[in-house]
């Protein structure tokens, strides 16, 4: 039997529960006044914002603004949070909304670039890929190149935005199917369907580059 087949369970170790618990612990400690915990939590919030901006929204020039938004909202939210276990879902939803609002503020923004909104509730039929490279300043692109392989960047560009968001949340950020469904606003079954399609498309794109 193929070794590739027998290792199925190793791909997705159950990191989601551990990550969620880790975030919850940081939230509790931060709310209790632990400065070190707060710094770690705020750093994570900014990391999430940066990755999401670049990989899902495809607008590197917005990434640092979205980081600031995530930083401020997390700082303000921590002391009021009632369900620390739900923090991670809140954070990704907040970052997604920050990206969306950032796009809306751009004067003369072509409607096809509001990709993240297309990802929430529609199918994949109208969601053309965002040209990540085309909107990146050279410095941003250098950062992107150093961080994500050129091969994977090209493959991600082949995905409709709605599928790209699910790949990033599920595969790269390690959210559970339920968490992805909550952030994106679709059913778990729909998440699984889109994820499968995205994996197949990504595979084909990777084989073609």
């Amino acid at each position, binding site marked *: 039997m193929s070794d*590739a087949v027998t290792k*199925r369970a190793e791909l*997705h170790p159950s990191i989601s529960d551990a990550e969620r618990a880790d975030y919850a612990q940081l939230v509790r400690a931060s709310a209790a006044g632990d400065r070190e915990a707060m710094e770690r939590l705020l750093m994570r919030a900014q990391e999430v914002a940066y990755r999401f901006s670049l990989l899902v929204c495809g607008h590197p020039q917005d990434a640092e603004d979205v*980081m600031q938004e995530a930083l401020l909202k997390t*700082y303000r939210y921590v002391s009021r949070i009632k369900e620390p276990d739900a923090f991670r879902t809140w954070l990704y939803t907040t970052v997604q909304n920050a990206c969306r609002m950032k796009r809306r503020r751009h004067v003369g923004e072509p409607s096809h670039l509001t990709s993240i909104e297309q990802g929430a509730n529609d199918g994949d039929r109208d969601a053309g890929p965002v040209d990540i490279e085309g909107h990146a300043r050279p410095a941003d692109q250098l*950062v992107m190149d150093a961080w994500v392989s050129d091969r*994977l960047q090209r493959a991600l560009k082949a995905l409709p935005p709605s599928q790209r968001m699910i790949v990033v949340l599920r*595969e790269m950020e*390690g959210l559970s199917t339920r968490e992805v469904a909550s952030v994106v606003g679709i059913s778990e079954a729909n998440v699984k369907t889109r994820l499968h399609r995205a994996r197949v498309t990504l*595979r084909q794109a990777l084989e073609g580059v």
Partner: protein
Amino acid sequence: MSADVNTECGDMLTRISSYLDGDLDAAGCQAIERHCAACARCAGFVAGLRETIGLCREAGSAPLPDAVRQRARASIQRLLTGEVL
């Protein structure tokens, strides 16, 4: 025979992500593994998706560039010391 094999391959393709995510029960997993043992094309497809998922996970766990992290840390310090961002 060929039609049966194609049907089996098609069924396999629809369930492969569930299989890779560990969402299938033991019987479902064994059915896929039996099929892949006899079908090189599907076994290759599984291996390809595994590599794809692995690449994504690798990128997700990569640290952010140092320059970005430094700016993020500076923003945190300004926030925690009460400076205006």
